[in-house]
């Protein structure tokens, strides 16, 4: 998706010059096992794909905190994307191990083999598809939160004319608003925040009139703090989000796709998403197979 906090950059630079970014046991899982992984049997649903080792780890890069998708309680990782990847790993006969990675450096970390997969509400865009392969699992659009007093009065972008809107740096919304402003007498003013929490607090304290973010994030704020936040209109600019994998790991791509398809079929993915109130963001039925859903030219 679209957030790019800054911790990442330093991480990326570090990853470039040094060899490790984050915990140092990350790179080990894929180094010496690439040729034997596919043949080992386990009690799981499918064969463990290369480059993983049966009983080993699937190292997953994720940018926490990004509730409700992924966040930490103590050192434990939680969230619907975390639970999804734990199930995926389990069905492949391995254990998911999560590694906190800044969003900006996260594709670099995957390519540098700091991890085997990325799950971080990452929208599938053509730019990213040049660098990594995706297995889509949900659709993420962007939605607007308003104060409960303003509920009902703001249902579309043009209702925000003359008002100030908090957006997260890096979302497509700023461009969207600038386009909308061309048609409005009074422009929508934008205040950018690197972090969704500060943007939400700005709405809560009346610094801005609305707060734009990824729809699941907005839904989470509204669910958890109905006194402070209400939803303003439906989500816009929807794009599929995917689990990112290295392009050369075709066996792993097929295995993950197979598991996600199976989880859609047996309802286990819906169960996980429903637990976090985000089941509305699952892929529509006809997109289940995934590959055709991966088209996207927006730059989120």
């Amino acid at each position, binding site marked *: 998706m*679209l957030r*790019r906090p*800054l911790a*990442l*950059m330093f991480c*990326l*630079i570090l*990853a*470039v*010059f040094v060899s490790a970014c984050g915990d140092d046991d990350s790179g080990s899982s894929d180094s010496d096992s690439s040729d034997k992984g596919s043949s080992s049997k386990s009690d799981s649903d499918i064969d463990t794909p290369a480059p993983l080792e049966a009983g080993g780890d699937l190292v997953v890069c994720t940018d926490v905190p990004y509730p409700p998708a992924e966040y930490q309680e103590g050192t434990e990782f939680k969230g619907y994307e975390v639970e999804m990847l734990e199930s995926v790993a389990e069905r492949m006969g391995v254990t998911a191990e999560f590694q906190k990675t800044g969003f*900006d*450096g996260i594709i*670099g970390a995957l390519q*540098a083999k700091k991890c085997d997969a990325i799950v971080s509400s990452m929208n599938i865009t053509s*730019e990213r598809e040049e660098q990594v392969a995706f297995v889509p699992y949900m659709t993420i659009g962007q939605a607007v939160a308003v104060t409960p007093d303003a509920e009902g009065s703001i249902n579309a972008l043009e209702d925000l004319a003359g008002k*100030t809107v*908090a957006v997260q*740096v*890096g979302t497509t919304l*700023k*461009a969207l608003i600038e386009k909308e402003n061309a048609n409005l007498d009074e422009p929508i003013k934008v*205040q*950018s*925040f*690197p*972090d969704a929490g*500060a*943007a939400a*607090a*700005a709405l*809560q*304290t*009346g*610094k801005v009139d609305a707060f734009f973010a990824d729809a699941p994030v907005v839904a989470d704020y509204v669910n958890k703090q109905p006194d402070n936040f209400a939803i303003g209109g439906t989500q816009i600019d929807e794009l599929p989000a995917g689990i990112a994998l290295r392009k050369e790991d075709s066996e792993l791509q097929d295995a993950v796709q197979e598991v996600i398809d199976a989880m859609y079929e047996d309802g286990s993915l819906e169960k996980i998403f429903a637990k976090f109130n985000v089941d509305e963001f699952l892929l529509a039925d006809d997109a289940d197979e995934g590959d055709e859903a991966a088209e996207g030219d927006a*730059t989120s």
Partner: protein
Amino acid sequence: MTLPTLVAAFDTGTFWEALSPETAMGRALWATVYISVSAQVIGTIIGLFAALGAMSRFVALRALSGVYVWFFRGTPVIVQVFFWYLGASILFGFDLFPREIDLGFMTMSGAALAGITALSINEGAYMSEIIRAGIMSVPPGQTEAALSVGMTRGTAMRRVVLPQAARIIVPGLGNEFNNMLKTSSLLTFIGVYELFQDAQVRYSSNYQPVEVYFAVALWYLLLTTIWQLIQIQIERHLGRSDRAESESWATRIFGVGGPRRSWA
């Protein structure tokens, strides 16, 4: 990845684009400059009063100054920034800063004003210690002499002690302002559009954080270099009674070309 990979991946076109005045020079650069300058000026004034308080005859003033320095120097600036802009509103239920302030020649956002407030108050704590050190470096005989010719304590401080303390204060002040230029980047977290946020917005649409961060780093380097040149002039002015020969800028910045100043 190795160093050659990095160099190959480094898109010089993007780098120059982000560096060019048309793209970064505008609002963002101006915001960084006016926020840093205002925060440093206000912080220095606060610091002067805090330093005088710390050396006061009255125990209450000494305690007040001590608690101020202790608290604001001992807590993270980013927390203070969040507090003034967001935390205070949540705690007290009212806004300390309006959304926009019309200054006639420009409109300042409430976030920028909250940021200047936070940075000034934080800076005051550091400046207080620097100014106190400067004042203490002036021999007590100077004050005694001033009092003996009939000056009041206030006049003696203003006319005799502070001008001499300034020579000690300015290098520390220069250091602080250099820091301030860069610390102002923290205001991106409360939604102030300044140099650093400009970089964040830029790389989030072109996916080239390395180039953009290098460019923004050079902008900060340019600002700190300009300040360094100004500081040299100030120090030269203050030190004119002590130093017969003046050194070139190259000598002052890079330590080359002038007389050796090592101890050995």
